[in-house]
Structures are given as C-alpha cells and as structure tokens.
C-alpha cells in the first residue's frame, strides 16, 4: 500500500545500521515484514481452497438438478446438504462453482504471470545487455504493445482463438510481457556498467553466464515485485474475458462465466451474480494487499 510506504521510511532506524539489522532479523521482526506474512497467509489460504476444495467437495459442472434450481443461500437440499451460497438456474451448487472458479482464476493468473514474466524478463535482459539493433527492435515492440489498450487486444486475440483455458493463458501472457521487458531492460542498463560485471567478463565468463549469474540475480527484486502486482490484474482480465464469453468456455465454472449467467436472474436469484463477484473482490483485494506488502518490504522506493 503506497499510502503507508513513504511515511514508514522515516520511522526506520538510522540508515547505516539497516542492512545488517535486516540480514539477521526474521521477517516478522518489522511491521512491513509482518504485513507480508499476514497478507501472504490469506493468499495461500485462497490458493489452498482452490487447489484442495475440489478434492474435498467433488463437483460435476454437468450435473443438473432442475428440482433444486434457484435455491437461496443457506437452503437445505433434500440430501441434507446445505447450499451455503445457494444454487444456480440449473440447480448446481454455487459454493462449488465459486471454489472451482477460484481454481481457474488462480491457475490462469499464476501461469500467465510466470509465462509473461519469464519471456518479458529474458527479452528485456537481452535488450539491455546487447543494446544495438536488438534493443531498438525489442523496445519498439514494447512501446507498441504498451500503446495498445490491453483488454482490447486481449478481446481481439481471444475472439480469434476461440474460448478455451489454454487460449486464455496464451492471450493474457501476450498482453503482459512488455511491462516485464521494459522493467528488466531498464534495470540491466545501469547494471551492465558496474565493475562486477566487467570483472566477471574479464575473468572469462561468457555473455550467457554473466547475464544469468550476475545480472539476472541483481534485477530479480523489482521483477518479483512487478509479478506479484500483476497477478491481481490478470485475475480481473480473465474474469472480464470470461464474462464476455471469450474466456473460460461454458460449462467450466469460472467467476466471470457464473456472474454473466446470473445476469439473467437478477430479479429472482440475486445470489448467482453477486456471491461469486464478492468472493472475487475479496480475493483480488488480498492478492493486491500481498503485492503491496511485498513491495514495501523489499523496496519502499519502487514506484509501481
């Protein structure tokens, strides 16, 4: 959270002592560190629910129970089972759909950030390290990509590819690589002039070795920060695509798809559209808090 960031910095002990102190302290010793842990626990919990939930509560998206359709949250179904979040227009349990939605959302967000992050970082490092023609071309592409409204490009690509989980991952990776490439390149530019890089080269290290061992390691912090902040954005993008029918294909449950179906039942079954969105908001918010906490902990000056 940036509001707290600038003010916390002044409250820290005198500067010279800081690196040493931090090296020995456990992460929970500072307020910022504790925030990383607390927000991290929430994120881990949501991930666990997404991963393990389907194992604990088996759910078949194709199982239709018309006699149980549009039951309000908390209704008790004939089998004695309680539909905590209610049921949808086909009698499917909304809680199970939401859990499966969490799973899809996490899967898409995490994998696209990993794919876009590694590709973008690799290209950015190459660009900043070698400069010259490769840099001109790659950064031209980055500028172009960043000029293109991201969701519009995603909608166009997804529409051409057709809805599927793989295609959503591909689409959302394509629209995000450029942010990583630009950040990586910027960080490399200043690093490549440093003495330790020159020393590594003088000692006979190959370009590949210098990039992987010396440069990449030193730019990892901003990259990790950017990646955690991008996860929330990707969750929102996936839900938007799915809402428009261009993302996760029906009948696979995803938050966007469920909300879009609930649109037609706003009058007689408000819970279908509202409950998944509320869960999603809480999830995105906690992922966002986690990203902010990581940023403040690792580097309070990082301006994203």
């Amino acid at each position, binding site marked *: 959270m940036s509001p707290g960031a600038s003010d916390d910095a002044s409250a820290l002990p005198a500067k010279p002592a800081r690196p040493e102190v931090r090296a020995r302290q456990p992460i929970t010793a500072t307020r910022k560190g504790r925030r990383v842990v607390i927000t991290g626990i929430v994120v881990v919990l949501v991930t666990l629910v997404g991963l393990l939930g389907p194992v604990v509560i088996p759910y078949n998206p194709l199982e239709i129970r018309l006699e149980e359709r549009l039951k309000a949250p908390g209704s008790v179904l004939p089998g004695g089972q309680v539909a905590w979040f209610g049921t949808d227009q086909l009698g499917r349990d909304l809680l199970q759909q939401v859990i499966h939605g969490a799973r899809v959302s996490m899967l898409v967000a995490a994998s696209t950030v990993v794919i876009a992050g590694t590709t973008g970082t690799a290209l950015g490092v190459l660009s900043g390290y070698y400069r010259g023609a490769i840099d001109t071309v790659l950064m031209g592409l980055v500028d172009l990509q960043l*000029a293109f409204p991201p969701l*519009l*490009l995603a909608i166009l690509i997804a529409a051409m590819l057709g809805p599927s989980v793989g295609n959503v991952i591909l689409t959302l990776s394509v629209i995000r690589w450029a942010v990583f490439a630009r950040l990586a390149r910027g960080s490399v530019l200043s690093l490549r002039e440093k003495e330790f890089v020159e020393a590594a080269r003088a000692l006979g290290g190959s370009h590949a070795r210098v990039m992987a061992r010396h440069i990449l390691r030193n730019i990892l912090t901003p990259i990790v920060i950017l990646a955690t902040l991008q996860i929330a954005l990707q969750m929102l993008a996936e*839900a938007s695509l799915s809402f428009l029918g261009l993302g996760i294909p029906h009948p696979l449950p995803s938050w966007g798809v469920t909300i879009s179906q609930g649109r037609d039942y706003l009058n007689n079954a408000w819970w279908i559209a*509202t409950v998944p*969105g509320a869960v999603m908001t809480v999830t995105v918010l906690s992922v966002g808090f986690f990203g902010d906490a990581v940023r403040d902990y690792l580097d309070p000056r990082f301006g994203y």
Partner: protein
Amino acid sequence: MGRYLVRRVLSALLVIWGVITIIFLVVRVVPGDPASVLLGTFATPELVAEQRAKMGLDSPLLVQYGLFIRQAVLGDWGRSYHEGKEAFSLVLERLPATMELAVAAIAVTIVLSFVFGSLAARWVQSPVDQAIGGLSLLGQAIPNFWLGLVLILIFARRLNWLPSFGRDTLWHLILPTVTLSVQLIGVMTRLIRAGILETMSQDFVRTARAKGVAEAAVLTHHVYRNMMIPVVTMLGLQLGALLGGVVVLETVFAWPGLGRLIVTAINNRDYPVVQASVTFAAVTVVFLNALVDLTYAYLDPRIRYG
C-alpha cells in the same frame, strides 16, 4: 515547439501503423478461417473457396496486408455482414454514445479524486486518510462488470430509482458512469494524495505560506499547478484501461456504443465491423496519448521542446 510537434506526430503515426499491423496479424495469421466460420458448418468446399476469394483471403499475405492498410487509411472496411451498412459508418454512429460515457466518467473521476486525494493529504494518517486509502484499493479490486450488476440490482431493480439499461435520458447515464469511474478514481486518488504530499514539502510552498498566501490559494495556485503533469500523464495512461472498461460495461448496461458494437460484432463473426471498430478504438487511444504529451508544455511553461 514546432520541431517537437512534428517529431511527436511522426512517432504517433509510427505507433498507429504498428497498431494496425498488430490487428492485421491477429485477424489474419491467428488460426481460424473467417470464410468457413461465416458460412457455418454446412458449407461446401466450393462455397468456402468462393467466399474466401470474395473476402480477399486467397491472395498472398503481403497483398492482403497492403489492402488492409488501405482500408484502415480510407476507413473503407467494407459492409457489415450482419446489417449490410458500411462498417465504418456503424462505428461513427456508435461513437457519440461511447464519448458521452467516457467524458462523463473522466469528469467524475477528476472531480472526485481531487476531492478525496486532497482530503486524504490534508489529514495524513488520520482515519479519513486510511478510509480513503482503503476505499481506493477496493475500487481497484472490484471487477467492474460485477459492480455494474450490483448497482443495477440495488438502484434499478430493488429501489427502482434509476433505469438499468439503455441510453435515453440523463438518468440512464448515472449507473454506467459511476461503475466506469470507480476504478479510475481509485488509481487517481492515490496518485493525487501522493502528489500533494510531495509538493507540499517543497520550498516554494513554504515561501508562499510565509508571505501570507491563504491556504486555499496555496493549494490551487502552487500545489495543484505543480502536480498537474503526473496527473495528466496518469489519466492519459489510463485511457487504454478506460476503453477496456467501456467495452465490458457497455455490454452490462446495454449501452449502444463502440464497445457493445465490438462485442456483438465478435459474437456475430462480423469481420468488417470487428476490424473497423477495434482499429478505430486503438488508434483513438494512441492519438489521445500523443495529445496528452503535447499538453505538457501548456501545463508547465518550464518545459520547452527543442
């Protein structure tokens, strides 16, 4: 300034060319045959071949590219498969509705984020500041299409205060505008708060106060004026996100604008309209961003482009 203007316009044209090329690549090179999609599953191979020829899909890629650029420059995308009208005139027909929504959302955003940002900066670290900070984070986390549905549910269906969809009276504008601006307000409030706090600590603010300038005048004449550049830059950068929001929300509110046109055209496989509308929208955003760059010199007379 003149030379800078020329350079900026040239680079904008270059980006616009790139954007058009990306759209061409996505539409033509991504697997999937528009001709067979258009004709449906029962079309004979001969019919598909004929349709491909009619759409120019059988010529070499480079020729298609040349044709595509020509269409983009002239705005001549052919007729909509669905409505029979010129695709580009459909885009122009829908433009006012989207402009209305976008301008309303930006206006609401500017006013509210200045109010919230100033309040938060005035009482830093107070409960007011924390509440505003929390709300702006929440605003950025809420999926906008969901917020739209919740607002419809509350204000249209339950309370019956506002219409839930369509574009008719000023009342119809309220819910889509609020929904569209919530995320922007979140982003801008944080930025404005930080900007005010930073500018407030500068020497010229202390000087202004020392010579007895009233606090309100310090804020409007010295502080706001000096933080306009990041604010305008950020607004420019958010235009792309705003457009994304428009596409989704016009579907939610059945708002007859460009975004709704894009989504229905995609669902109908109406390729001329998809190309026309997406190209127009993307080019407009690039153009507006170039315009934002040019306003810097006006906002900050210290900037002189050589």
